[in-house]
């Protein structure tokens, strides 16, 4: 056995456990704002991910224990679950999770080998294949008279017999959806923003959720689980792109704060774009990666076919990672100050 003979106490499990822990404030706010349905989604995604992970490990001839206990499958499951509409049907959750674990993770070689963030691949597959079901969002509790209990939510998710009127009463368009629909109907941003769904910065309740994800993300940064470059560049990309558009035509483009305070942005900036496996590794590369993802998010939100663009933006930037890494190699100790990218 060669040197070194001692190790720091860190482990993949520990890293993943911190990521899960940092998601807890977000989950708590989610339950508070939108009701307990998310717990059903999270549980279902977790079970599906673990079963899929175990099956794939067995099929690929890998030992189950070290990889099941690394918690990476659960992180993928939670990130996907938190991206899905809170009242998405069970089969949607299962399909997305299976796709994430089986195809995006294991068919690419398992832990550490996936080019794309598995959760975002699962999300992209779902939104492309099942756009209608992907709009089944519960509105903030503060805006509706009725709310669903945990059992009722489970019933909705598992396709139980729930009165349609009740479902209609609790689901509503997300703020981003509302903005997009309004703009398509030729309303100005100001006209759209009078709708009750909009709050101070983002959507009512949604901005709280965004804040909770931000808090968890900052904790991850403080613990040095994630570096500052990706989230900061991502948020800067969003803010600058949205601000640029808003500056030129405030009637047609949402304000930068509105774009920034969407839960998907905070989740994306701190938990998804920071995925080390599919992200850039060099300090400058991380800045480019994050900024590019932020920029693309606004471009897709503004001109794309979907109300939100975080998932596609991150997947597109995942694609660029090898190139970014190659051309942003930092200067090494003792290397001449004028650093040169290594030849292709």
């Amino acid at each position: 056995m060669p040197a070194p003979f001692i190790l720091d106490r860190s482990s993949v499990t520990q890293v993943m456990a911190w990521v899960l822990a940092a998601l807890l404030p977000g989950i708590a706010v989610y339950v508070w704002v939108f009701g307990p349905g998310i717990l059903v989604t999270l549980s279902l995604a977790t079970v599906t991910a673990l079963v899929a992970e175990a099956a794939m490990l067995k099929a690929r001839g890998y030992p189950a224990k070290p990889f099941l206990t690394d918690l990476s499958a659960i992180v993928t499951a939670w990130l996907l679950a938190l991206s899905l509409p809170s009242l998405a049907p069970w089969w949607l959750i299962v399909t997305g999770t299976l796709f994430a674990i089986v195809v995006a993770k294991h068919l690419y070689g398992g832990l550490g080998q996936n080019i794309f963030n598995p959760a975002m691949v699962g999300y992209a597959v779902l939104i492309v294949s099942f756009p209608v079901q992907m709009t089944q969002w519960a509105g903030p509790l503060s805006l509706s008279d009725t709310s669903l209990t945990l059992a009722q939510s489970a019933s909705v998710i598992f396709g139980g017999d729930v009165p349609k009127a009740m479902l209609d009463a609790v689901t509503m368009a997300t703020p981003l959806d509302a903005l997009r629909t309004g703009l398509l109907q030729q309303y100005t941003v100001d006209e759209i923003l009078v709708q009750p769904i909009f709050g101070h910065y983002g959507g009512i309740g949604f901005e709280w959720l965004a804040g909770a994800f931000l808090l968890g993300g900052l904790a991850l940064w403080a613990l040095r689980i994630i570096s500052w470059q990706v989230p900061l560049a991502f948020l800067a990309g969003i803010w600058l792109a949205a601000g640029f558009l808003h500056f030129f035509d405030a009637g047609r483009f949402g304000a930068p704060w509105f774009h920034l305070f969407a839960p998907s942005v905070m989740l994306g900036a701190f938990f998804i774009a920071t995925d080390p496996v599919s992200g850039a590794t060099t300090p400058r590369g991380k800045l480019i990666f994050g900024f590019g993802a932020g920029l693309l998010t606004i471009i897709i939100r503004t001109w794309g076919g979907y109300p939100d663009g975080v998932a596609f933006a991150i997947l597109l930037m995942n694609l660029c990672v090898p190139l970014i890494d190659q051309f942003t190699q930092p200067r090494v100790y003792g290397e001449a100050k004028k650093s040169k990218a290594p030849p292709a």
Partner: protein
Amino acid sequence: MSRTLHTFKGGVHPPDHKSESNTRPVHAAPLPKKLVIPMRQHMGSPAKPVVSVGERVLKGQLIGEADGYISAAVHASSSGIVSAIGLAAVPHISGLPDECITLTTDGLDEWIDHAPLDYRAMDPSDLRMRLRDLGLAGLGGAVFPSAVKLDPGAHHHCPTLIVNGGECEPWITCDDVLMRHHAGDILQGVAVMRHLLGSTEILIGIEDNKPEAIAAMQAAAQKLDFAVEVVALPAIYPGGGAKQMIETLTGKQVPSGKLSTDIGIQVFNVGTAHALARAVHHGEPLISRLVTVTGHVLRPQNVEVLIGTPMQVLIDLAGDRDGTTGVLMGGPMMGMPMPDLDVPVVKATNCILVQSKELFPPLPKALPCIRCTRCADACPAELQPQELFRFAKADDFGRAQEYHLFDCIECGCCSYVCPSHIPLVDFYRYAKSEIWAREKEKRASDLARERHEFRLFRLEREKKEKAEKLAAKAQAKRAELAADPSASGAPDADAKKALIAAALARAQARKTEVTPRNVDHLPPDKQHEIEEIEARRAKIREMARQPLEPEEKKP
């Protein structure tokens, strides 16, 4: 402290485990019955034995002389009889035995005559040769012959001399203890270094987890007639690495692929300075050193040990315990496991670290890399270890070199922080050794290819030259015939005759051919023999071809 310190990138803070061994008094280890003294204890050429089996040697007597400029002599650590000269187990990462001289000690510990050197009066180059012959080599770990490092050379000068008392590796305290108890001697050695290098600025870097050492060195520095700055450095691993210490103290980085002397800085370990003082002021060769014996032993401590003492002797002295799982030479970050404990203490042995399951739990199984870049954050060489790992694993050595594999100092920080517990340094060592092996192979095959290509070129050239000669001759013959009207009646026969003459001339040329055939630098007799053989072969070849030629010309 007035000096502004700089920080180098990366580094880690493993538990330092210094207090186990640095609080006990220093003793001399008992004289063992047998001393095994390797001829290769330093970088460069191994020493050449100059004694024979059965000979009695005295303590401090030269037993292996330095072989070349980058080499150092080896001496008997005590008096006794040379009982064997040959391969024996040595502490080396390869685990392979090496040439050693084994002494059976006589217990008298009788010194050979030795006298101090008047270093100020000596010619610097004579002094350096003397130091080489006293076996001085760097005691910080690299064991580079000190005489070489003390030569500023024609093109360099070393205004800055750094004396390294960093000792950043966990568990090791021999430099700490040496500075506490022998600060004066160390500084006397520094004075000699200053004399040889002509340094004007002298810095002594000591990590701030050694306050007693810092105080002792500062007190001793007050008594000098030249200025020495004792600087407390923040304790961080590998802050005691030469390049890291240079950066911390001066803010300069040693350019990649160059030496610190290229930027006017030379670095010596405190132990080396101490040994230098013993050599100059007492005429003593390097035959003993301080060794930390620590870890899973009853009485962790520092011991003054004769070079060649079997490690087991020291472990027994410190109190062997049950549950020992292994023994390292060096610290836990860069040390190497010892295959058995008969191996001797050598000049490079700073620590004997006894492992147990509790102190050194078995390393967990490695998981795949998740590219978290903690290794890159920890790397003091500012490399991207995760990329180097990827390239090394894929045997993509070209890319690994482009990503500065050879700037890796193998400090182990990357492996230490890796959450996937990947033995990263191993992969880099593997890649480096593969590249070296391939370079060697490539050089050999390049040489073979060049020779082959030159041979083809030469054969082609000879063929062309002969053809030209032949054509010229035929032309001359034809011109001669044309000029002589009497022969005009039979031009065909004459043309034939000319061709035959040319063939004969060619045969003659082959016979006398003496073109060298890749046999440069051979002794003249060999050369002659080869020439004869070549001539014979040419003749045979010509004879074999002769019958064909007339046949071809038959109508």
